[in-house]
């Protein structure tokens, strides 16, 4: 009996068409088929095992009348209306399901995986895949596991992840709110943390949820077994023990940082040029502390209203607790760069800052990282070779990667374009990928696509993904929290994944080995 159930659970149906790039198979009426479900078909004629992904499921019947189903539904409704509910007898014998599948490829007789270029045998038997069917993926899954392979609503015992050295070719994490972005980011950051210096990550945490876990029972990176040894935390406000107060020097702020963080009109940009010409590096202080904006405007030959905007923004910057105007106070940006170079994970808690201020801080530090890594690339290849691939993670990345933000002074597009060469990758977290410059998006080799409701968001990702995800629109639309599609150059096809729940993941991580206990008589021996 159990065997029968197992067979029924495994056996899904028979293929009946239809092309190399799209397969259809008939399944039992009672068989539950899910979008994104992975299936296998045995082609005994050619000793190949084809792998498929379900992209659509419909009903079928053996009736030759194309209007049968509609009419039967109408008959049901008539019965309901007349108070005589009808009952479809033998549904399993009269109805069935038709699944449309995207062929993923096939495993040849030698066990090698090949892209789909031929048809599976007509009427080939379709079954659930086994972990062995995806064994070829193991070596491509990399050392930063983030979940397990998902097949519809089930999972397959195969860890899905990415190679750490691909972090520098940029990572995109895209999802609507509540679909698991933060959880995924914590798992990814946790894996980098657990790599013990092989890789490094700089995370800007605008809500403190990466560090503390957010609300309720959620846990954060602070509770990671390797946090004490390998996590460095900076906070722009008092953040309790374990965090260093972030301090940046006013002199570090470049015009590019300001242009990245704020939207400036041409008149305002012109006013900044004039102020720099007049006051040099002290221009922010001069403007921020000027008693009369009108006088200053007249002095610089700009409109008073323009000067008032500049002054408000300068004052906000001067008021930021993490910005020091005292040149004797060294910036901690250099220390952050050093820690990253040493393979530490660095988290900058920017909670409390406005969106623009957060970008300003991220821009300053990112610029320092990119410049430092770039400098080593040019001047010390040996030391550069020892640098860990470093990922810079930024929430709501569309703020700095949109077409409107394309200016040469913006450091983030620079990281996207040039960072790979310098071992610096960008991790763009966004719920609106449609706002990201598609040219920049195409620089991202790894996508983690979680549930995305907006068709425009899915469309932009289709165009930039390293695997064809054009058939996966319905699946992406119906992804549940924690379910993801992973695309990168290493995977042979877009991989459906179930992301580890960070709290579960933590249980599987073993931290640093404790020191061995001191032998009981060790001290005595010395005394003797």
């Amino acid at each position, binding site marked *: 009996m159990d065997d029968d159930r197992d067979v029924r659970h495994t056996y899904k149906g028979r293929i009946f068409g239809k092309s190399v790039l799209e397969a259809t198979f008939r399944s039992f009426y009672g068989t539950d088929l899910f979008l994104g479900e992975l299936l296998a078909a045995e082609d005994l004629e050619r000793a190949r095992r084809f792998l498929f992904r379900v992209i659509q499921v419909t009903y079928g019947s053996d*009736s*030759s009348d194309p209007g*049968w189903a509609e*009419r*039967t*539904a109408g*008959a*049901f409704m*008539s*019965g309901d*209306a*007349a*108070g*005589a*509910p*009808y*009952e*479809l*007898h*033998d549904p399993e*014998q*009269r109805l069935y399901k038709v699944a449309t599948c995207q062929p993923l490829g096939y495993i040849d007789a030698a066990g090698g995986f090949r892209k789909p270029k031929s048809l599976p045998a007509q009427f080939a038997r379709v079954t659930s895949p086994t972990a062995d069917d995806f064994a070829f993926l193991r070596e491509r899954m990399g050392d930063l596991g983030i979940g397990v392979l998902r097949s519809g609503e089930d999972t397959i015992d195969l860890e899905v992840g990415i190679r750490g050295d691909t972090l520098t070719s940029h990572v995109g994490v895209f999802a609507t709110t509540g679909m698991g972005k933060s959880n995924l980011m914590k798992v990814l950051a946790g894996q980098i943390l657990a790599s013990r210096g092989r890789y490094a990550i700089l995370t800007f945490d605008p809500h403190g949820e990466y560090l503390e876990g957010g609300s309720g029972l959620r846990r954060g990176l602070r509770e990671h077994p390797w946090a004490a040894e390998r996590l460095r935390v900076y906070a722009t406000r008092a953040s309790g023990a374990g965090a260093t107060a972030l301090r940046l020097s006013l002199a570090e702020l470049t015009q590019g940082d300001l242009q990245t963080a704020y939207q400036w009109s041409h008149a305002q940009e012109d006013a900044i040029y004039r102020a720099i010409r007049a006051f040099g590096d002290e221009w922010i202080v001069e403007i921020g502390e000027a008693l009369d904006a009108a006088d200053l405007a007249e002095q610089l030959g700009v409109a008073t209203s323009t000067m008032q905007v500049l002054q408000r923004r300068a004052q906000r910057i001067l008021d930021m607790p993490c910005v020091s105007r005292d040149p004797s106070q060294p910036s901690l940006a250099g220390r952050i760069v050093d820690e990253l170079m040493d393979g530490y994970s660095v988290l900058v808690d920017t909670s409390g800052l406005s969106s623009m201020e957060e970008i300003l801080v991220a821009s300053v530090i990112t610029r320092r990282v990119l410049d430092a890594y770039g400098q080593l690339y040019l001047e010390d290849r040996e030391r550069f070779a020892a640098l860990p691939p470093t990922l810079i993670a930024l929430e709501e990345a569309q703020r700095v990667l949109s077409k409107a933000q394309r200016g040469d002074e913006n450091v983030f597009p620079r990281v996207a374009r040039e960072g790979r060469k310098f071992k610096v990758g960008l991790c763009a977290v966004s719920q609106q990928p449609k706002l990201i410059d598609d040219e920049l998006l195409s620089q991202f080799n790894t996508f983690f696509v979680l549930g995305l409701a907006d068709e425009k968001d899915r469309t932009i990702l289709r165009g930039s993904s390293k695997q064809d995800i054009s058939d996966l629109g319905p699946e992406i639309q119906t992804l549940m929290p924690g379910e993801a599609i992973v695309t990168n150059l290493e995977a042979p096809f877009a991989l459906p994944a179930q992301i580890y729940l960070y709290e579960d993941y933590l249980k599987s991580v073993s931290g640093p080995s404790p020191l061995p206990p001191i032998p009981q008589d060790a001290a005595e021996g010395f005394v003797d």
Partner: protein
Amino acid sequence: MRPPRTGVGARSRCSVLSERTGILGPMPTGAPPQPPGPLDELVGADRVVAGRIDQAADYVVRLLRDPASEIRVVGGQLELGDDLVVPGHPDDIELRAIEPCDPGRVWAIDGGSCVVADGRAFQVAAFRAARVRFDRGSTDLVDAPPLEIRAVSGALVRDAAREALTDLLGHEPDAMPDLPRPVDAFREWGEWRRVLDAIAEAVTGDLVLVDGSLHGGPLVPPAVVRRAHDEAQDRGVSLAGVVKASTLYWGRNAPLVTLLKRRADRELGPVRWAGRISNDPVFGRLYIGDIFVAHLAPTAPYAFRVDVAHGPAPADEVLGRLAGLGSDPAFVGYPYPLARAHQAARVTGYGVADLRRAFRGALSRHGLSDDDIEVLFQDFHEVLNRS
């Protein structure tokens, strides 16, 4: 000297022949086609003699309105002779509610057939009779045997008929039916063979359903029906027949089932009902049970003639079981097992094409040339319809 084969002389001879004999007549030149005359009317793209559609409609309406004062069972049956005619009026037939009940275990038999080749003087027929068993809400047996293929001509038909009827009756038949369409006869005999088999396999309380009337029709001797009835009674099995194309009429031509359905729609609305037709004592003498017109589901678009044999269960109970079987939304008001039996027995259009192709192959293997096969299968209607 021989006349030149080509040239002016030859051309002029052809012209003269045509003009002189006038067989073809002069080619019409320039005259446009005539519009429809005043007596014709255009229906779609074709012309119809004016008024004919209305005349036909008027005839049908009058026919249905008040055709006669008797109920007629047309088609009779072998050995019965003329139609059965009894006094009656559709409005006088009592329509009673049917209470659906658990159908229990039900067997259903239906046949399917087709003509593989028709050489006028002979036919090659394919047929089978299928049976299904419905138990506890689902079909647990579908027995669709392989198609039987028979080549029959005049003499062969009689031999084959005698053989089949002897099997059904248990003895040589006293009389042989006329067999204008042998394929129908083979199918019906096959169905009754399966009915007898089903009754033999059924257990007490089962219901065996036949596609068609329980009166056999012109091809099935009443003795076959009686045998089935006797065996069913012996085994405590109920027997019923459901007729899709009824031969019950009011008067000579008004279809009684349709008339009762319309009356019930007006008077009762969407309910299950049955009207007993076999109220006259003459039915009791001639038939093994009662004839009803039954509407087996509230919203069923059709009513059917239902024959219920006298048996272990009263007719009301059998009708209730049939109503319990008429609740499938794909076949509302028709007993579901009969629908399944029909599907199991039928020969689809693709099936017919496959059979014909296989038969042509067999003819070729048996030495008939391709040209002869072509002639054998040709049907000039196809040429006419294609051209």
